[in-house]
């Protein structure tokens, strides 16, 4: 069976996939620029097609027994061992595969208490990362495009490692429009912007407690247990304790960067 070896965040991942179409999508989005040969994988994922119907809605049914967690949407089903070392994904199409991988990976990094996948874009300025978070339509990808020629670490889902010492951003392979470049390191997170499109630029710092509220619904997660929800809460708390969060009201041009750098 064909195998793709890749690295996302700090994790080595082996993906097994027979379907040619899905493999093309995987190779395009999850190509690793760093050598991954001869390294034991942290998780092995087996992928197949032929499941379900095309995208209906975002509702995911979650079931759990002793050894496995099962995430089921109309267009995908994920079965993952409770120690997150092996998973299988069955999908209807490429979109379903993309969403299923985000679902699995976000649960995987929370399981390892490593970090979060945040609904946002992220641009680099002077060697530091700046996040632009918001609901669909708030302007994440607009802010990402307007940040050109700055390099991007994400345009839809930012990969954030959170520890008590620091908060680091990794290049995210989970992209909507702008493909990832070859950057394979990580950069410290300097600020988080919660986006609002407006007629005038304005950037205001948010109290830490409000920042936590604002970020709760920007995290990709499909909780299956109270422990998991509490881990997510603790990770967001660590983030807002270390990184300033702002409300950014911005016009649709690149002048908002004057308020950041």
């Amino acid at each position, binding site marked *: 069976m064909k195998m793709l070896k890749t690295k996302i965040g700090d994790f080595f991942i082996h993906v097994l996939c027979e379907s040619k179409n899905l493999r093309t999508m995987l190779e395009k989005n999850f190509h690793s620029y760093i050598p991954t040969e001869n390294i034991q994988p942290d998780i092995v994922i087996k992928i197949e097609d032929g499941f379900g119907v095309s995208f209906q809605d975002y509702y995911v049914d979650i079931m759990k027994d002793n050894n496995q967690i099962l995430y089921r949407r109309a267009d995908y089903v994920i079965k993952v061992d409770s120690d997150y070392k092996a998973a299988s994904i069955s999908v209807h199409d490429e979109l379903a595969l993309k969403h299923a991988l985000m679902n699995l990976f976000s649960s995987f990094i929370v399981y390892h208490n490593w970090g979060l996948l945040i609904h946002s874009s992220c641009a680099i300025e002077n060697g530091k990362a700046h996040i632009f978070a918001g609901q669909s339509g708030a302007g994440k990808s607009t802010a990402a495009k307007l940040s050109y020629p700055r390099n991007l670490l994400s345009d839809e889902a930012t990969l954030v490692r959170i520890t008590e010492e620091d908060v680091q951003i990794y290049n995210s392979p989970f992209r909507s429009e702008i493909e990832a470049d070859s950057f394979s390191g990580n950069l410290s997170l300097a600020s988080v912007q919660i986006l609002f499109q407006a007629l005038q630029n304005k950037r205001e710092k948010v*109290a*830490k*407690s409000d920042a*936590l509220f604002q970020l709760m619904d920007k995290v990709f997660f499909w*909780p299956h247990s*109270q422990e998991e929800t509490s881990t997510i809460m603790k990770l967001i*708390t660590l983030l807002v*304790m270390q990184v300033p969060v702002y409300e950014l009201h911005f016009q649709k041009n690149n002048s908002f960067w004057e308020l950041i750098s």
Partner: protein
Amino acid sequence: MMTHFIQKGNVEATELDGEWIILNTDQYTITKLNGVGGHCWSLLNEMQTVDTLTKSLVEEYKAVQNKEQIKQDVEEFLSNLTECGLIENVNRL
């Protein structure tokens, strides 16, 4: 009969810059408390009554002359927290 209140087990609380965030992991709700609310919340890890909380606040904030107002506020606060599923009352004879 005196009503006793205590924190429920399914909650996580965090203090951030003098404010408190309480997460109910059963219902996925988040509640924000100011400093005074956080003071009461901390005490509620053991059983408290309206009177014990009022007494503590009067001492903490040196507000003897406002005791009646504080008592009313504590009653309202406890009823709000109960509604949010963050504390439960235990009736004792």
